[in-house]
């Protein structure tokens, strides 16, 4: 078949284009970070927290710490809510309600992150300001916004994980006299554990990569540690410094290095995710 050969080649070509484009992007990032690390070393920028591009100090420690704190806090905050939503959707609601429930969550998965940022600015920041007397901008607000943002994704994936548990396990457990609660804690959740962990890792990746919603509420300044003080993360600082350090200026390659660190973190998360899937 002639068309078969042709289409084989055409799809092959498009795949090659895909690999070339993304390989090019990866090479740009790695090359830029290599230029940066040759000058400043690989580890010392990660360990130092002194950030002043004008004097040549590129300490990224506070941004890395900001990224990790926001991500960890958001996942810790969101876990019980996500468990509640997924058990509600998979074990409590019946029939077509389950379908409406998933559809409802899907809308929120597709909700633009800038809307969650808007919510953070109009609801969370003034709320925190009133409660604590601080400015309201800071790591805590950012974690709350990110938590709500990853909630729909996390719950849909956990819901699917719970649904994958074979019904015969549940029937066996109930048949042996276990109550519904015992079945949930001792049969359903342990069986779904690898997939739940995968869901958590996807949520973590999303939280770590979130830029705009965090940028709107985290305040952008840094120096003083603490949950209520303004801070910055790798992604928000990348966004802020993009116009300040254009190519050609001395500090430009630090942006590539930040992108490289993000890529590295994502690779680790994806590696864990794949291992869970096995």
């Amino acid at each position: 078949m002639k068309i078969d050969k042709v289409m084989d080649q055409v799809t092959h070509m498009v795949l090659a284009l895909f690999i070339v484009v993304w390989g090019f992007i990866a090479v740009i990032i790695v090359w830029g970070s290599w230029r940066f690390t040759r000058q400043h070393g690989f580890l010392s920028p990660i360990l130092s927290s002194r950030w002043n591009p004008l004097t040549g100090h590129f300490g990224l420690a506070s941004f890395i710490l900001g990224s990790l704190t926001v991500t960890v806090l958001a996942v810790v905050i969101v876990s019980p809510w996500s468990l509640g939503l997924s058990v509600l959707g998979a074990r409590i609601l019946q029939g077509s309600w389950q379908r409406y429930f998933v559809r409802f969550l899907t809308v929120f998965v597709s909700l633009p992150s800038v809307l969650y940022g808007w919510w953070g600015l109009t609801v969370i920041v003034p709320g925190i300001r009133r409660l604590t007397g601080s400015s309201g901008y800071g790591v805590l607000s950012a974690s709350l916004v990110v938590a709500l943002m990853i909630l729909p994704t996390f719950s849909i994936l956990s819901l699917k994980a719970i649904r994958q548990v074979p019904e015969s396990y549940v029937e066996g457990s109930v048949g042996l006299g276990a109550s519904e609660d015992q079945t949930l804690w001792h049969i359903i959740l342990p069986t779904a554990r690898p997939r739940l962990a995968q869901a958590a890792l996807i949520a973590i990746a999303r939280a770590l990569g979130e830029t705009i919603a965090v940028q709107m509420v985290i305040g952008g300044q840094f120096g003083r540690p603490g949950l209520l003080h303004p801070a910055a993360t790798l992604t928000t600082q990348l966004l802020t410094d993009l116009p300040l350090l254009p190519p050609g200026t001395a500090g430009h390659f630090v942006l590539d290095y930040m992108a490289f660190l993000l890529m590295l973190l994502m690779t680790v998360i994806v590696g864990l995710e794949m291992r869970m899937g096995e």
Partner: protein
Amino acid sequence: MSQGDLSPKTLKPVSQGRLAHHVLAVIGMGAILALLSVVIPLAIEGLPRLSMEFLFKSPQELGRGGIGPEIFNTLVMVGLSQGISLPLAIMVAIYRVEYAHAPHLAQWFDRALHVVLSLPTVVIGLIVVDYAVIRWHWPVSVETGILAFSLINWPYALSLAIEAFQHIPDEWREASRALGASRWQTITRLILPVIWPDIIELTGLATARLMGETAALIYTAGINVSGRFAFSAPGETVAVHLWYIRTEGLMPNADQEAAATGLVLLLLVIAVLWVSQKFAEWVKNANL
């Protein structure tokens, strides 16, 4: 004892030992309320500002304008970049699932695709600014925005398309090949007609995601609009406009402007999801 009493349902404890379920249900309801607390204030605050004037007029720095050009830019940029990246994504997906000449490399491809997918979009913005804007001297404009959009959408649409193609069981392919159909005939006559509805629905998801994209666009498509549409003119989208007036803009009534803009964005996203779902259902039923 009647026979119905012995069915498994009556043997299940119905009210005892369900305390944790009740607690989790309450927590879940709370989570639903929290999610609604994003949408409802948006509607309450934005709705009074919504008018024909707001939807079609150009924005003004001191408010009282509209977001007409932003809506138009969003639609053009999302539509064109979807038109570029979706066929490319489907091609790669066909290769990955249907041809796959090097199966042992497929696992590495999937892993790399996952990393690319989780890469923050601001990194794409950085690359596009570095190369397109600075090196190739593209203006900060609609066309640069389309480039950024296409780069963001390509891997995402690819992963969705791969998933759609993998829904088809291998037995179907084997049966089709055994009856003498070539690979390409199998794809066009058997697989694509079955997964069109899925692809349409997934395209809706990808489109909704692009509409809300902000971080990669701020420095590639810009934060203002020109009076007349042009591919080389700045092309602020609705999402970027919302970000701009809520963080850097100087409008006196920024709160209301932002809420109305956010409401328009929300309605656009919901409309895209709804239309793609209905269209997918229609295609599915038309096939039968």
